[in-house]
């Protein structure tokens, strides 16, 4: 028993309807018309065949009517599964076939709903069919599940989408296959619901918005039509557009506020949360549903601030124009005014005006409903600058919806992109847009930021498909971060990061190892994504390579040494310097936060951290804990893609003492950290927040000799443009090390010694003509003027 009977009358009618089809219907209608007209003409001519032709015409009308009203879409009347199956299913499935889950999939595979689900889940239909059971006994479970899915979505019909969803949900083998595509059954449900919403939109009847006489008792609005746009009229002309929001809490709150007698609403929410969409959804709601007297048949007109300001030529024009617009709205009696970006009406400036004095009497008189859309920051500014006006507004705060609801809105927006650009946007891409915009688009709210990111991903479509990779590519391009999985080349680079760093770093193996491991953990997605990639405190004497290691990381992994963000913390010793760190760019264009905002994927080097003011160290606690800081304008800046390295010379003498006593770093690491805390140089809560505290030991003479060789490589690179190279004998290197080695300053004096010894010598040889292009110079100890 299949659970459905494909020999039932309804199934046979559906197949007959398919056979006749639209061409058959049109053929029947045309023939009927020809017979009826021809018959009538012959009857008029008193011809003997006239009546017969009329009779045939009537007979032909009957099957045409039958196809039009029943066969083209056999009505569902509930009951058993055969009565509930959609026409598509009844046509696609063949009688006499013993259906199994795999055969059912095969039977429905060509249907557009199957294509919708497989394309949006980005799965291979053939692979799914292969994973499905060929056991007829399993079919009952699938069909039961399909009916349950249909019931849950309040659908009387059991459609192709429901059956395909049931097939994907009930097979354990398919479940395993889906997990390989990073999909779960809840994702399958979400795509099924997405399909359901598209089907519902297609079935939606035209709304009744009041008919021809609706506005005859309301005034004309010629000026408002000129300086604003009638949102309600647009909805009437272009159909339903804000279905998901029409019954949202935000729209209900606005309606409730107006019903309770408020004259003006402050619609508050961050950019991207959908303030404009909510106002438009209110317009649709008011048009489509019976309202109380305050809102009945009201139309929303959105005023265009820039058009109003640019129309004002002389002083006083602006006030006159706005007053006339408001009067027109009051007089018309059926208008609600919507002030999008309301801050443009509250503050005089280029392209904006301070209209609060003109608006205040209207708001107080409650003569026309007004909606002012603004961000929380703008609302606070309005309250601070004009409390008398702000106090008259009823705040309606839009809050971000839970993830599932937000994904629904983003998916519906994706449908619009798909229609406009003839592309497919996979559900994985929608989830990625949600996830990555949440991480990187901190200035905007959901769902706007996810939709915005999806829009940016359009240019990264591959074969007209937007995948998770397209969204990652978009965020990598716009933010300069690494969001996607590591490519083989990058993975290889990560696995051999230590070697790459040691090409420019001598020893300090432990320090290099912990940093490289942190980068590998972050890139593999193993580390906590809500903190910086890595945070390290490098401790050790001057000139042992702390800063050099930070530069090496920037150069090898972040591909740009110059892009390293470096702050000398000795310049931040005053309590007021906190504001310099947190500046939003107005006072300090290169504040730490502005640099990280511009370049989130970077190495942040905080040199000589112990010299910073304690208030700044407290900021560092938040940065390391939460991976973000908030600027002076209230916008958060993410450090989640940065490696934070703080360096300090604190306890350098102690490290040197331990090393000279023959101890290894690992042996005194813990004792040294305790020493730093006990001496009050660092607070324990700060030290605890670093991923690693790395001790750098002083370099031995052998290591200093290697440093000299590295530096010589740099000199040779410079000389390569003149085709001259220079080499040092071991004796020369030993001499430079002897001169440049200062236990207090590490390798730092080495550069000066090398400059004096090698660069000066070569420069003189070039000027004297003793070194020409193609020459290879070998310098011995005696050749060096040190």
């Amino acid at each position: 028993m299949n659970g459905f009977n494909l020999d039932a009358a309804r199934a046979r009618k559906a197949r007959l309807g398919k056979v006749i089809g639209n061409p058959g219907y049109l053929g029947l209608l045309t023939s009927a018309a020809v017979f009826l007209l021809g018959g009538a003409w012959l009857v008029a001519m008193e011809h003997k065949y006239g009546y017969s032709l009329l009779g045939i015409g009537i007979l032909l009308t009957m099957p045409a009517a039958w196809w039009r009203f029943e066969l083209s879409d056999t009505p569902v009347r509930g009951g058993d599964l055969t009565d509930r199956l959609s026409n598509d299913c009844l046509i696609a499935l063949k009688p006499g076939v013993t259906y199994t889950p795999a055969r059912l999939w095969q039977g429905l595979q060509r249907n557009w709903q199957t294509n919708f689900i497989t394309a949006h889940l980005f799965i291979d239909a053939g692979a799914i069919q292969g994973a499905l059971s060929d056991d007829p006994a399993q079919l009952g479970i699938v069909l039961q599940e399909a009916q349950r899915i249909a019931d849950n979505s309040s659908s009387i019909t059991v459609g192709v989408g429901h059956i395909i969803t049931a097939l994907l949900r009930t097979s354990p083998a398919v479940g395993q296959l889906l997990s390989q595509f990073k999909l779960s059954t809840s994702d399958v449900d979400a795509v099924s619901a997405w399909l359901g919403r598209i089907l519902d939109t297609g079935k939606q009847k035209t709304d009744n918005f009041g008919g021809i006489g609706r506005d005859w008792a309301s005034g004309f609005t010629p000026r408002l039509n000129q300086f604003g746009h009638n949102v309600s009229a647009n909805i009437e002309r272009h159909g339903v557009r804000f279905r998901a929001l029409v019954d949202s809490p935000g729209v209900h709150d606005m309606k409730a506020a107006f019903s309770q007698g408020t004259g003006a609403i402050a619609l508050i929410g961050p950019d991207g949360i959908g303030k404009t969409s909510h106002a438009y959804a209110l317009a649709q709601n008011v048009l489509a549903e019976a309202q109380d007297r305050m809102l009945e048949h009201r139309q929303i007109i959105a005023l265009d601030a820039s058009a109003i300001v640019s129309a004002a030529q002389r002083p006083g024009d602006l006030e006159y124009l706005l007053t006339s617009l408001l009067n027109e709205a009051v007089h018309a009696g059926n208008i609600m005014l919507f002030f999008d970006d309301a801050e443009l009406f509250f503050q005089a400036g280029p392209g904006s005006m301070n209209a609060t004095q003109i608006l205040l009497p209207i708001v107080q008189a409650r003569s026309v409903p007004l909606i002012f859309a603004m961000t929380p920051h703008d609302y606070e500014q309005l309250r601070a600058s004009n409390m008398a006006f702000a106090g008259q507004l009823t705040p309606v705060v839009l809050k971000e919806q839970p993830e599932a609801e937000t994904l629904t809105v983003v998916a519906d927006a994706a449908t619009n992109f798909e229609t406009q650009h003839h592309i497919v946007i996979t559900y994985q891409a929608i989830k990625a847009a949600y996830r990555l915009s949440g991480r990187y688009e901190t200035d905007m709210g959901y769902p706007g930021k996810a939709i915005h990111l999806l829009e940016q991903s359009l240019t990264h479509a591959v074969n007209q498909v937007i995948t998770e990779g397209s969204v990652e590519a978009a965020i990598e391009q716009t933010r300069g971060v690494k969001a996607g999985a590591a490519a083989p080349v990058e993975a290889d680079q990560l696995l051999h990061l230590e070697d790459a760093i040691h090409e420019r770093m001598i020893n300090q193996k432990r320090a290099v190892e912990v940093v490289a491991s942190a980068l590998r953990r972050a890139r593999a997605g193993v580390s906590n994504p809500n903190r910086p990639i890595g945070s390290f405190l490098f401790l050790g004497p001057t000139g042992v390579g702390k800063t050099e290691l930070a530069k090496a990381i920037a150069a090898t992994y972040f591909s740009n040494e110059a892009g390293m963000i470096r702050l000398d913390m000795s310049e931040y010793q005053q309590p007021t310097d906190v504001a310099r760190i947190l500046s939003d760019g107005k006072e300090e264009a290169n504040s730490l936060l502005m640099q990280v905002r511009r370049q989130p994927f970077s190495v942040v080097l905080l040199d000589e951290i112990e010299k910073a003011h304690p208030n700044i160290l407290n900021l560092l606690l938040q940065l390391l804990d939460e991976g973000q800081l908030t600027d002076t304008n209230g916008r958060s800046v993410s450090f989640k893609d940065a490696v934070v390295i703080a360096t300090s010379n604190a306890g350098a003498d102690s490290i040197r003492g331990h090393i000279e006593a023959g101890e290894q770093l690992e042996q005194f690491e813990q004792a040294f950290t305790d020493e730093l805390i006990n001496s009050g140089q660092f607070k324990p809560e700060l030290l605890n927040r670093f991923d690693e505290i790395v001790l750098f030991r002083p370099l031995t003479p052998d290591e200093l000799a290697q440093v000299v060789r590295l530096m010589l490589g740099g000199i040779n690179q410079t000389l390569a443009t003149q085709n001259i190279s220079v080499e040092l004998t071991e004796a020369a290197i030993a001499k430079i090390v002897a001169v440049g080695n200062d236990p207090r300053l590490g390798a730092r004096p080495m550069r000066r010694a090398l400059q004096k010894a090698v660069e000066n010598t070569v420069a003189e040889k070039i000027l004297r003509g003793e070194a020409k292009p193609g020459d290879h110079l070998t310098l011995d100890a005696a050749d060096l003027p040190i």
Partner: protein
Amino acid sequence: MLFSLFGWWYGAGWAGTVRSTRRRLASLASMFSIAILLRTLFSPWRRIITYPGAGIDAKLRAFGDNLVSRCVGFTVRIFVLLAAAVSLVFLSLIGLIELLAWPLAPILAAMLIAKGLLAL
């Protein structure tokens, strides 16, 4: 197939004519805004009104002007309502004819064909 066709014709098809007439009547009533027009029958036309001044003359003039606006409004609305009434009656008649003629159509067709053939 023929049995199915006649089954539908005298069952769901015939009942469908009643439903479709009802739907068409509701749609027509909505298109003519009948409820709104009845409620605003005496309202001024498009709110073209004069606000009364201070003196008795001004008040009388405003009253007169507004009376004219209301008369215009009333006239337009009453004509639309009349047009709506005529359309509704017409549509109802068509619906009634459809309802009555529907079951007779097959018989009529058979009779017409027979009449033509018998005349041969």
